[in-house]
């Protein structure tokens, strides 16, 4: 069964801006799905419609087989939302924010207390349960929103840039927590601007641009389409100029570094042989950009140029 199905979903705002131009999308149950796109592409509008915060202009949304218009309550019960911006009452305690949300979903008091404790422990916030939420750090506030979204045990968790603005250490620990939620069977849809995050966590991906889905496939297939990868080679000794090697685009990045574009056709082995013959010793190499980031830019740019 699909956890989510969007069919011809369209949104035109009052000012005439068409944010979604009839998108179709299916997310399978249990998936960890990335919904990516540049700012203003339509991601937040799509998420807003799915979570009932924005009214659609036309089209249908189905959540675990429940039509969002016809079976709104059943559909809503399946969804947990972690929004982009902090949207809880900053004067309430962490515990009451999560506990009240359980109440809105009709969870009896005793069960709501148990689940609140479980979710706060899962998000490593139990020792902060009586803290007023405005006193929490940015990372903790994000985890409160995840705990709040999980307290009614949703089958579909939507994470709208859940790690925006948090440092790398907290981000990595949040990845582990989110992975654990997915491993327990919850379908996850993730939007993020950290493409490394999407590459690391997600199995399937859709890229949205100018209100249209421009790519929808599984992550390995998408990455396999990357024909050229860019590397930075750190050298043992300074060089005067970049060597010219047939089949490779090589530029001098600094005194002791080279930027190289390597196509799959040629690979890295021949490059190292050629460099060794020229007495250039490579100490280390790294990807110049994240692989998904490179593909993302290619897809978004190609689509934009096509439209012009």
């Amino acid at each position: 069964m699909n956890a989510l199905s969007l069919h011809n979903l369209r949104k035109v705002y009052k000012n005439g801006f068409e944010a979604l131009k009839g998108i179709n999308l299916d997310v399978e149950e249990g998936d960890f799905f990335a919904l990516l796109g540049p700012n203003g592409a339509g991601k937040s509008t799509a998420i807003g419609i799915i979570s009932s915060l924005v009214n659609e202009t036309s089209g249908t949304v189905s959540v675990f087989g429940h039509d969002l218009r016809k079976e709104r309550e059943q559909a809503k019960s399946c969804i947990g939302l972690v929004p982009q911006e902090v949207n809880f009452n900053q004067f309430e305690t962490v515990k009451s924010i999560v506990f009240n949300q359980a109440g809105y979903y009709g969870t009896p008091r005793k069960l709501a207390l148990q689940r609140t404790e479980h979710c706060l422990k899962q998000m490593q916030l139990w020792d902060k349960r009586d803290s007023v939420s405005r006193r929490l750090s940015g990372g903790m506030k994000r985890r409160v929103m995840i705990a709040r979204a999980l307290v009614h045990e949703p089958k579909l968790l939507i994470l709208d840039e859940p790690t925006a603005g948090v440092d790398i250490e907290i981000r990595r620990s949040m990845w582990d927590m989110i992975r654990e939620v997915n491993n327990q069977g919850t379908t996850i849809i993730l939007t993020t601007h950290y493409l490394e995050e999407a590459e690391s966590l997600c199995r399937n991906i859709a890229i949205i641009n100018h209100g249209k889905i421009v790519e929808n496939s599984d992550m390995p297939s998408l990455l396999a389409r990357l024909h050229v990868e860019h590397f930075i080679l750190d050298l043992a000794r300074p060089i005067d100029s970049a060597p010219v090697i047939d089949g490779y685009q090589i530029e001098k990045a600094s005194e002791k570094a080279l930027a190289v574009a390597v196509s799959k056709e040629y690979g890295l082995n021949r490059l190292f042989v050629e460099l060794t013959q020229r007495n250039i010793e490579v100490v280390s190499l790294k990807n110049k950009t994240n692989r998904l980031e490179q593909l993302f830019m290619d897809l978004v740019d190609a689509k934009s140029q096509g439209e012009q």
Partner: protein
Amino acid sequence: MSYGIAYRTIAIKEIFRFIRIWPQTLLPPAITTALYFLIFGKLIGDRIGTVNGVSYMDYIVPGVILMSVISHSYANVVSSFYSTKFQHNIEELLVAPVPNWVILSGYITGGVVRGLMVGGVVALIAQVFSDIALNNLLVAISITVLTAILFSLAGFINALLAESFDDISIIPNFVLTPLSYLGGVFYSVNMLPGIWQAISMGNPMLYMINAFRYGLIGVTDVDIQIAFAMTGGFIILLTLFCLILLHKGIGIKN
């Protein structure tokens, strides 16, 4: 899905909200109305004598109590719901499977409870200055509850339509306060000259205040059946209006 639990959650949250900040919500009306009773009722009232056969102090007590109920039930809902909108907490309710009528009921309950608690506080203070023997408990309680419901609904509509904090102070300052002062809190409408008496009869607050006055001291300028019918009619009207606004997502959805 248990709507009862969702309703209780919203209502309890709303009630605890204003109790938590009691110095801002329950204390000021106690001080303001004590001053009303002291200055208007005691100092000036003693020189006025009687109105409609009762002492001026006893005459103004019901109006001052109901005026407090009106302003605080309205203020509770308008400030709480607008803050919820402003901070985007409303999204917590919009994503949940809570029907609009449950959201409305929860907020109205918060407004009614605050209105009644403030009314209770003012009534206790009134006991220090006057010695009112209750005329009709049922009338007094029912018109108070209905009035609190009505003005909580009005506060909810104001909050839904408001786009800034300025918008939530316009109605209380420029509509509610003048209407309640001109609704016969401090005088009998019979004391007014002809044309002003006729104009006053178009003020709905006049009916509620007089019905409550009848419940407390047995004195009224209007037919209390009309007062109940009018209040009930307005409640039905405003409830429907609130539900339409919520259904369309006006003020809360894009």
